[in-house]
């Protein structure tokens, strides 16, 4: 049975219309992953001796910081680890036991980069410990406990994705820890270090930790098995439709009609709603990077500015026209010109970027120079990147299942590595331009150059639109064919 499932998975991957793009992205991702794995491996081998050299007891020092890693791991998982999509509906009427389907689904989540990478640190670290005379049994129990925590995170993340109440609880706990830690009211390491240390000192406790992921797995199993009926897992519950009129948009003609639709698209579908939320989070990205001493250069400020003002641009704009994938044939045969269609998407992106620039004014508290960087980056985003995302979108042929957010077995992540990788090249050019002007003249010249580039992009808008329009026309049939494949 499992073999059948696996072969179906492989066919779904290799026969999908976006296979080529998927493969290219997977290869790039693979290179990234390999790079990080090597780094982690080196750290796993070397950390023991590094700490020893500083006269620190390696294991207890590692134990002290483990709690941060563990919590961070959960956060990263939430944003990056996709819950695997299973199309369960066809199986429900076939003679396949429900337990089989669910355990395959749960088992599939275990085979993930996020569960494998810890081994690259903990395995060599444990071996080094044993080689240096630490008792085998105790190291083993510590190792097993850590492994259990990894898989605990794996299944907790799955529940966070699917159960709003688990999400809320975990969020509250994490945020309160972060706040307490930030203001130094409470140092969680004081409480966590002895616990991690105990995994080593009392092997029984270490091995008992295995129960944690096992119990959670059992809970997940019974939860997903229970919802595995067509009316619950596969079909969403009905809610009363609200209707908004947005009559004020009507004076903008066809453009208004499209904008109205796009606003409804965003607020009525879970997938796009979470995209909006993520793009708001981008606003605060600057706080993360600009408060850090390592990033205290002007180039990093611009980098932060591009992210702060480009949240919506990258997360939503990067997937135009996929947002309309479910009804793309309608859009292609109705009385709509490509130009009007693209213009409305462009305006949506521009309005959101302008709003981001205004909302980001709280960065003024960190100095007007930082805000200047943000404004320059914002102008560049509007003038150049807004066109580039639309251009790139023509090649992103992954259909977006708007209803996916409502299904238990669907992927509801709005932000994924793909988004990031597609966005990356759009950041490099302005940074390069800035760097050249900054080095040759000064900071102001650098920002000015980036902003001027943005204005130039605006000036050539019609030309850019014509190019984009032609690409959309050329890609039209391929896009339509790709969107037709829903699974």
């Amino acid at each position, binding site marked *: 049975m499992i073999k059948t499932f696996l072969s179906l998975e492989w066919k779904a991957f290799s026969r999908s219309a976006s296979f080529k793009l998927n493969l290219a992205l997977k290869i790039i991702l693979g290179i990234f992953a390999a790079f990080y794995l090597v780094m982690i491996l080196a750290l796993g081998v070397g950390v023991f001796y590094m700490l020893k050299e500083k006269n620190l007891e390696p294991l207890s020092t590692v134990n002290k910081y483990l709690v941060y890693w563990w919590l961070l791991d959960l956060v990263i998982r939430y944003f990056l680890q996709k819950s695997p999509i299973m199309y369960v509906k066809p199986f429900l009427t076939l003679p396949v036991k429900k337990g089989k389907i669910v355990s395959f689904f749960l088992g599939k989540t275990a085979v993930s980069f996020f569960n494998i990478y810890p081994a690259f640190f903990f395995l060599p670290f444990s071996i080094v410990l044993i080689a240096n005379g630490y008792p085998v049994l105790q190291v083993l129990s510590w190792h097993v406990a850590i492994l259990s925590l990894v898989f605990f995170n794996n299944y907790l993340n799955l529940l966070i994705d699917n159960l709003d109440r688990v999400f809320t609880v975990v969020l509250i706990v994490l945020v309160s820890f972060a706040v307490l830690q930030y203001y130094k009211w409470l140092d969680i390491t004081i409480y966590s270090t002895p616990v991690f240390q105990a995994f080593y000192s009392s092997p029984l406790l270490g091995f008992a930790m295995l129960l944690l992921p096992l119990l959670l797995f059992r809970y997940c199993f019974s939860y997903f098995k229970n919802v595995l009926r067509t009316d619950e897992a596969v079909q969403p519950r009905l809610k009363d439709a609200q209707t908004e009129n947005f009559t004020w948009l009507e004076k903008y003609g066809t453009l208004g009609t499209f904008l109205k639709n796009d606003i409804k698209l965003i607020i009525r579908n879970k997938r796009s709603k979470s995209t909006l939320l993520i793009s708001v989070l981008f606003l605060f990205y600057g706080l993360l990077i600009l408060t850090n001493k390592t990033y205290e250069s002007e180039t990093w400020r611009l980098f932060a500015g591009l992210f702060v003002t480009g949240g919506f641009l990258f997360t939503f704009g990067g997937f135009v026209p996929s947002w309309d994938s479910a009804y793309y*044939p309608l859009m292609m045969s109705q009385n709509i010109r490509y130009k009007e269609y693209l213009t409305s998407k462009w305006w949506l992106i521009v309005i959101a970027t302008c709003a981001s620039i205004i909302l980001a004014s709280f960065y003024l508290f960190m100095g007007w120079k930082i805000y200047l960087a943000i404004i320059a980056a914002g102008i560049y985003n509007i003038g150049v990147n807004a066109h580039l995302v639309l251009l790139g979108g023509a090649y992103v042929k992954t259909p977006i299942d708007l209803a996916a957010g409502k299904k238990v077995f669907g992927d509801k992540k709005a932000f994924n590595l793909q988004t990031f990788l597609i966005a990356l090249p759009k950041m490099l050019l302005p940074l390069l331009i800035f760097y050249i002007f900054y080095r040759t003249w000064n900071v102001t010249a650098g920002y000015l150059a980036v902003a001027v580039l943005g204005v130039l992009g605006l000036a050539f808008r019609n030309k850019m639109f014509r190019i984009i329009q032609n690409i959309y026309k050329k890609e039209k049939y391929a896009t339509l064919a790709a969107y037709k494949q829903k699974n």
Partner: protein
Amino acid sequence: MISIENLKKIYNHVTVLNIPGLQIPTGQSFGLVGNNGAGKTTLFSLILDLIAPNSGSVSNNGIIVNQSEDWKRFTGAFIDESFLIGYLTPEEYFYFIGELRGLNKSDVNQFLQQFSDLFNGEILNKRKYIRDLSKGNQKKAGIVGALIGMPEVIILDEPFANLDPTTQYRLKGIIREFAAQKNTTFLISSHDLIHTTEVCSRIVVLNKGEITKDIQTNTETLKELEAFFSKGILEEV
């Protein structure tokens, strides 16, 4: 007037559609019948420029469909559920299409009045998004959406499938009325020989991508079609 010349569509070296020439004059109710895989939807998709022909061309009122977008102004279509916007209510969907065709809300409301029988009180003012409607009701919304703004050419793929018998009769009435009063050109495909012969003034039979029959509908048409499609089967029995 739709005219098709040397139209060919090939998938993986298999010719799925090959029409040397076909003219559909303005105002005609044109019925397309054929078995599964005969190429009906392929033909409609080519007329709507949703797929590219391997050779030949389709022109809609003199406009070559894959060279200019101007045909979109006077053409309405409902092929499948990908012509519906799931997150809108039916009203919003009708207004959306209406606005694209230059009608305001009250125009659309007035236009919709004639469909109150067809809707049977299950579509309008139900506070439901289209994605939450039943398949049959979705289809009704889609068909009416294709009629909004009185396009000169209306293309409906399998309009009778999935509808209840009462609605099928009502729909036939609507199509006849539009064709008679408004000089609308209808292109309708169907598996249902009876419905097609009742509604259409001309019927073309597609078989494996080629036109095998082209009949002006008369009293004998239904028998002729039944004979064609049951050939070989009745003899065996």
